């Protein structure tokens, strides 16, 4: 099947399709990795999924605890205190981290500092910080300064710094450089040229990224509760064993917040284009 005879007498070899190699590698990798996914198949009971969804989104009502819908909504209202803490930490982390990211992004951008030996160390630091998961940052921060709001702010700051610096230097590298060169040719120094030619171009993306990182932080706060950072994640992790209805209330609140943030951000991005 691999040789074709055309009417003018030439034979054509069908090229070997690399996709079969790729597929084989994929299958082998999946089989190997599947060995590490240990589970007890007798424990799997998918009907429990509906039970837990029902438990999450209706008030708990057992022999020992009787809660009504009024309690459910009252608890949701009470969630404003932990939610406040979460928002507070996220705002602080987003702003400080993003501000720190600006100089790093400028030094890492290839079109502003054309020297490779200046870009490389800054990029290395950025990549290194970006690899650390936020939960580890939170644990380290808690060990350093104790519990409370402060370790949350520190963790969010470093996390935001990692993401913002990368996105910012990528956007700086795509801007139009002509105004920058024009300003430099009139005798402006690098800082003046940057603030009058590049800042106007990256300002709106910067604001959009701020909102995006704020959303990421809020999302990450759900996981941070498991290691003891205050806020809405704490409510989820504390109640996750016995009070599913409280987890459900927290999930609804978090869902509404993230959804609203996504809507606002997509509006801003629509204005950008």
């Amino acid at each position, binding site marked *: 099947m691999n040789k074709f005879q055309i009417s003018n007498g030439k034979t054509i070899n069908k090229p070997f399709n690399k*996709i079969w190699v790729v597929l084989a590698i*994929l299958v082998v990798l*999946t089989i190997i*990795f599947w*060995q*590490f*996914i*240990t*589970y*007890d198949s007798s*424990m*799997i*009971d*998918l*009907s*429990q*999924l509906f*039970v*837990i*969804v029902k438990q999450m989104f209706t008030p708990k009502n057992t022999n020992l605890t009787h809660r009504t819908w009024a309690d459910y909504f009252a608890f949701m209202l009470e969630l404003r205190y932990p939610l406040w*803490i979460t928002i*507070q*930490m996220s*705002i*602080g*982390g987003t*702003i*400080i981290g993003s501000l720190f990211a600006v100089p790093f992004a400028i030094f890492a951008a290839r079109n502003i500092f054309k020297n490779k030996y200046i870009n490389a160390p800054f990029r290395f630091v950025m*990549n*290194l910080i970006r*690899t*650390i*998961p936020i*939960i*580890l940052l939170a*644990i*380290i921060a*808690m*060990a*350093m*300064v*104790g519990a*409370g*709001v*402060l370790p949350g*702010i520190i963790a969010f700051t470093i996390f935001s710094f990692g993401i913002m610096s990368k996105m910012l230097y990528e956007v700086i590298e795509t801007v139009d450089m002509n105004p920058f060169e024009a300003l430099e040719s009139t005798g402006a120094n690098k800082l003046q040229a940057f603030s009058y030619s590049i800042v106007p171009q990256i300002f709106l993306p910067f604001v959009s990224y701020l909102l995006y990182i704020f959303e990421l932080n809020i*999302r990450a706060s*759900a*996981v941070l509760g*498991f*290691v*003891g950072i205050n806020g809405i994640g704490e409510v*989820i992790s504390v109640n*996750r064993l016995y009070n599913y209805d409280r987890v459900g209330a927290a*999930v609804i609140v*978090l*869902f509404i917040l*993230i*959804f609203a943030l*996504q809507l606002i951000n997509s509006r801003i991005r629509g204005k950008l284009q």
Partner: protein
Amino acid sequence: MKNSEKTLSKKPKKWIVNLVFGIALILALFFSFQGSTINLLRWSTFGYAIKAMLKGFTEINLEFLFGYGSRQFVEGIVYMAIQTLAIAFIGTFIGAILALSFSFLASERIVGKRISKIGITLITIIRVFPEVILALMLVKAVGLNPLTCVIAIGIHSIGMLGKMFSESIDNMDIGPIEALNAVGANTWQKIRFGIIPQVIPELTSTALYRFDINIRSASVLGVLGTSAGGFGALLLLASADPNNQWDTIASLLIVIVVLVLIVDNISAYLRKKLV
């Protein structure tokens, strides 16, 4: 007044915008540090913690790190790293397969404008839920094991992958399919030679990018419980008493950074080759 001065006086009053923006930033910062109680006691613990940290970072337990000697390989951190890799890989694989079916539902070209809106809304809703919450819901049904993490990551991946997949299907060039029509190809041949070669590079590139992200979430998802796979058990141990666990934190830090850097570089290399 000279001409140039006149022009200068017409300069837009940017300082008002800057002032408002700056004041808003400073107010937000003040608000965010409310109740964070920065005091001398905090600074004293800070110094102590730095000392303990430096000591812990120099005393990394290699037997624990690689799982040899007094410990079995299964107990070592390197084994956990491989398990994390496995969770992320299979999670991405499942997510990509699921996302492909969702992307057909969200693509305007295949199902029309009205149904595609439903599909897009569905994808957005899936994307909003953090993985931890999905995993939390799955724990009762699947049990506290790596499989839960795999399914949670798979479902969460639908959000991003489905959106990107449907966009790349919508941006597909219709020309090759028309050409195949003209030579009388059947449906399977049209899919095989008209659609797949066009979309595969983009889909793989997106899936690889998602794999990068999933590695990070897989290393975190273990916090659900000690048997949830990945680094979970160690993260919980470290968070319970961080000042006595600096060597654990240090080895975790090293392993995670190395793992993520390797995966990042491999996927970046493959993506560069694809596109």
